[in-house]
């Protein structure tokens, strides 16, 4: 099925990957490092901790002091005591989320905080709740907590499909086009045209090479996630793999398009960074896009990394079938087709 020249070039692609330590680092080690750091940082059943600045004209005064002791016992509060003039810079600098001015003798408390900052508002609520309880507020409605831990709801579960999508983007986008640009700069593409080899085999070798590297990155991320973080796949592995292949093809095509004419490696790097960075930040790899304003979210939905992240996450975390991922797959296929058509039109060998 494959000509010997194609086989030899695919072997070359794998060889280039294996012998380039930085490629190995970005594709295999980088996602594992991210996973380890973020997984360790945000794993376990942790409550949020709020830093507050407490200020009182007389903390030694009995009622003030006993409230202070009461607040100190709350593991969710971290209390800093300082002079009044220090407090405002602490708030502006983010060292504390709220400043509490206390005068229990007069039964009065004053909060300084930023209502636009969710952390600040939450801290104010938490402190106020404690103070009111301390002062004797009784609950009017009886409440009862019945908690369930949902599988796949940890941050690491959210992160793993995102990291896989990100790795597919970086390795396909930077890897494919960069090699072509460098080979063009080095006159190798021109050299190929002086041989009877069908030059399209060279492009095909890049695409096949990408899929082989995808196996490596896919295995590295998923095996590490399963073994170290007990990641559990809710959907079908086959669906997950098919979406990964589609994603890899999309970004390889975009990479080839970006490197279709250039022979300048730094310019190519700049161009692909420009393409990749907004997606890395906005497509929901690291955190949910739920907080974005509507107009921005709508734009982000059509960046190619977004449907890749979303569909991988839906399969892995919600067990959604690939058949129900029509909109995501449609966006990816549009990118694949458009990038391929333009890459073919624009491509120059030298």
């Amino acid at each position: 099925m494959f000509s010997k020249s194609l086989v030899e070039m695919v072997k070359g692609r794998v060889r280039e990957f294996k012998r380039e330590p930085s490629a190995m680092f970005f594709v295999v080690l980088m996602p594992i490092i991210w996973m380890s750091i973020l997984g360790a940082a945000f794993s376990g059943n942790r409550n949020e901790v709020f830093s507050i600045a407490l200020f009182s004209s007389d903390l030694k005064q009995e009622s003030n002091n006993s409230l202070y002791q009461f607040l100190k016992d709350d593991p969710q509060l971290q209390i800093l005591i300082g002079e009044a003039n220090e407090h405002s810079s602490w708030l502006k600098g983010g060292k504390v989320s709220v400043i509490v001015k206390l005068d229990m003798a007069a039964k009065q408390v004053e909060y300084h905080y930023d209502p636009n900052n969710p952390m600040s508002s939450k801290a104010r609520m938490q402190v106020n709740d404690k103070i009111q309880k301390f002062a004797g507020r009784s609950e009017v409605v009886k409440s009862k907590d019945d908690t369930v831990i949902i599988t796949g709801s940890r941050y690491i579960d959210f992160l793993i499909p995102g990291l896989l999508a990100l790795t597919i983007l970086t390795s396909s986008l930077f890897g494919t086009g960069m090699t072509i640009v460098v080979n063009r700069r080095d006159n190798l593409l021109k050299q190929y045209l002086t041989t009877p080899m069908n030059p399209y085999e060279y492009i095909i070798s890049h695409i096949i090479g990408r899929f082989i590297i995808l196996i490596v990155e896919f295995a590295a991320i998923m095996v590490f996630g399963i073994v170290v973080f007990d990641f559990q796949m809710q959907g079908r592995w086959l669906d997950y793999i098919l979406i990964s292949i589609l994603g890899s093809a999309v970004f390889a095509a975009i990479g080839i398009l970006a490197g279709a004419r250039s022979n300048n490696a730094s310019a190519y790097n700049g161009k692909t960074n420009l393409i990749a960075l907004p997606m890395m930040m906005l497509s929901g790899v690291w955190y949910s896009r739920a907080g974005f304003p509507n107009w921005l979210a709508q734009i982000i939905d059509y960046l190619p990394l977004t449907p890749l992240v979303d569909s991988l996450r839906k399969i892995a975390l919600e067990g959604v079938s690939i058949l129900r991922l029509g909109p995501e797959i449609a966006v990816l296929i549009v990118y694949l087709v458009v990038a391929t058509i333009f890459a073919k039109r624009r491509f120059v060998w030298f």
Partner: protein
Amino acid sequence: MPDVIGNEPILVANKIAKSFGGFAAVSEVSLNINIGECVALLGPNGAGKTTTCEMLEGLLEPDKGNIQIFGKEYRSSRKQILENVGVQLQETTLYKKYTVKETLQLFASFYPQAQPVEEVLRWLDLSEKANARIETLSGGLKQRVYLGCALIHNPKLLFLDEPTTGLDPQARRNIWDVVERLKNNSKSVLLTTHYMEEAAKLADRIAIIDQGRIIAEGSPESLIREYCKGEIINISFEGEPVKVNEIKIKLIERQAEFSDADIIENSLEISVPNAGSYIPRLIRTIDQLGLKIKSLTMRPGTLEDVFIKLTGRSIINV
């Protein structure tokens, strides 16, 4: 394959021309290469050597004229032509992470009938370096590997575009040695170079190219004979400042046989068929003019002299 240069042309280029955005890089170049012949395209940088080569290699389509290689044209028989042609382009960098053997294997895979890689390695004296990565090789060795890529399929015709540019003298001689052996194996070679010595040593025939045109063509000896008469006498004079131009005019007035004289850096270079018999007459004439000789040397004419005669410029400084 014949052992001697045949009269049968393996490559015929007829009035080929190529322009880039209104600039005529090559204008109506015609060139033949016969079986077993090494033809050098000699000219300064920017003369149109590489553009000519790239048209002959099938990389560029000529705007005008036509090219036949083995009696075939690229348009209809590209694959058949390329299967029998080996090309070494100027300034190509091979994959630095590949070993020598892997590099040759890659190029071997492009051809239906390639030679065994080990044989090519032996032939190029590279067997010991078979497993060395390209990035670890010296410039000369890299160039030899690259030559191996062009030879891997035992082509009948080879294009070598500036094969020794940037190499040290020893490495250059090694490459020359390889080209000599190729010639002995009845390969036809088109060599482009701006090194006179290289063209003189390797080429059976030289085509001097300048500003996109071939301005002279012939064997190195015949070109030197035709344009330099054979030998060069270089003479400089005592006294400051020396008006060489006036001296030249006076000298020619007295002796018309010294009319082929050029001023080169404050000295006079006179082309003559046989310097030995001209020098006594020259010294006499200079005496009669009341001039004093500072130095007088004689040397055989070179292709550089031919180029200067033809263009009024030095090939190196263009």
